[in-house]
């Protein structure tokens, strides 16, 4: 059994805070969006929960961006453009075909690179694309009185509201796929366990790509 310490404490804490805030935001957001049904959160509660979770998510996001930029974790987000197309095809083929044939995973986790290309692109898109749009549109919704009356020729409140809703749906979709994909590790729960303990464990010895990425033994 070899193990890689891939998820430092700050990252795990941030991840699980994010997860809780996402759930709170989805529950309260749905309760406000579809207000009226009995099984939903009361509107007044949902309003405060949604706003508070949104503020905390903003702080968490800023914390992530700053810490990620200042720590070694940033290297996992550097896209390898030279092999991008080939990696994407191999990864997609694995999820569509190879996984059912029990083929070995085309990507091997190392300390130098813990994300495969699909993970990398989706996390980059979420953390540096959708999340800032979601947060900015949320704040713009709160302080819409300071916006111009129209944006792109449309009423600014409507533009902000629709942007917020569309990005919310996309992030909910991401969450759905994310929660499924973590079950595709060596066992159904191995990836989940890694995000709790910080240690990524593999039975098969990984093929080292560089000397720096050689795995170290679990203490």
């Amino acid at each position, binding site marked *: 059994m070899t193990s890689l310490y891939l998820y430092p404490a700050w990252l795990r804490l941030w991840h699980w805070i994010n997860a809780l805030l996402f759930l709170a935001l989805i529950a309260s957001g749905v309760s406000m969006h579809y207000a009226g049904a009995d099984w939903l959160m009361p*509107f007044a509660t949902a309003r405060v929960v949604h706003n508070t979770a949104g503020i905390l998510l903003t702080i968490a996001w800023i914390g992530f961006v700053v810490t990620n930029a200042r720590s070694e974790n940033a290297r996992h987000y550097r896209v390898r453009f030279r092999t991008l197309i080939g990696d994407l095809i191999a990864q997609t083929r694995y999820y569509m075909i190879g996984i059912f044939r029990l083929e070995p995973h085309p990507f091997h986790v190392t300390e130098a690179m813990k994300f495969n290309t699909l993970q990398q692109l989706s996390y980059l898109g979420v953390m540096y694309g959708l999340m800032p749009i979601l947060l900015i549109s949320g704040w713009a919704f*709160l302080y819409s009185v300071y916006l111009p009356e129209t944006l792109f020729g449309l009423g600014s409140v409507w533009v902000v509201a629709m942007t917020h*809703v569309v990005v919310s749906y996309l992030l909910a*979709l991401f969450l759905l796929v994310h929660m*499924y994909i973590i079950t595709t590790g060596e066992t159904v729960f191995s990836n989940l366990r890694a995000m709790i303990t910080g240690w990524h464990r593999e039975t098969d010895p990984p093929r080292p790509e560089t000397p720096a990425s050689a795995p170290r033994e679990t203490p």
Partner: protein
Amino acid sequence: MNASRDRVARQGAQLHPDQSRPASTTGPASTTVRAVRLGWSLALWLCLFAFGASAAPAPEAIAEPVGDALDIDRAEASADRHACLRCHAMSTLAYRDPDDGEIVDLSIDREGLAHSVHGELACIDCHRRSYRRYPHPNRPAPGDLDCIGCHEDDDHDLSRGWIDIDAEFKRSVHAVSDAPEALGFSCHSCHDPHRFRPAVVGEPIARIVRNHNEVCLSCHMQLVGPSSTSHDWLPNRDAHWTSVRCVDCHTPVAVFAHHEILPAEDSEQNCVSCHSADPQLLARLYQFRSEEDIARRGLLAKAVFNEAYVVGMSKSPALDRLSLVIMGLMVLLLAAHGLGRYLARRANRRA
């Protein structure tokens, strides 16, 4: 005083304190009543002469301590109001117009004036020229009592300029109608300058709606009478009347022009203008409630407690349907993928 004010047939009753303008009453009075009124009018004319001779500011008003120029201006304005209100605060002050025989109400509600937006002005700021002396002229001089004349320079206080309001009013059914009731219609016909107080951000919306609608109902009260069939087409008619301002439907929805009152046949009857995926009115309401929220709670607390949410604001049925279908398909796809993995592993174990 202001002879261009709406002429009302006085019935000896005080106006309701919430009314923006006196409710007009019509119909022939009996001979006895007319005689009594005439008697009152003559008596009041005598009073006017008596007070007019001694219309100097009251000693207590001019003795107010003042510290700077602003205080001096306020003291002078207060003294001026005091002098005028010695006569005009009398609730029965009126005279009979010799041309048409109608009673012209000249009384000013002291409390209403004090709470109005003009409450700190001197009377002669608006009633200029010969109103400085007594007896007053029968008709206001041209240019007197002109809202735009005073307000055209202070449009920074409004989201839109007074010139826009003037232009809207000139397109209004009240301005273009040939109906005899609309003759001589002016700003004062709706906004009694001695009582008018604009809605302030932070006031409860229900009160704002009520105050707004009372302006309209002061003339159109018959529309909301118990036997009225007006607005029958409207679902939950009474709920609309207490929650929506008349001008929200009776002005153009697409543009913000609350002084361009539309004729009934051109007014908004399309439910989806409010209850729709492209809710211009909801957006306007949301913006108003947001301003109100910030004014009442402050910037930071608004971020947590934001009470401005308007249900339906961010709803687009087509977008919701599309998103839910995509999410549903994704769940099915992931479930199928998971099932495929499970079956593949089971087959592998058996092999």
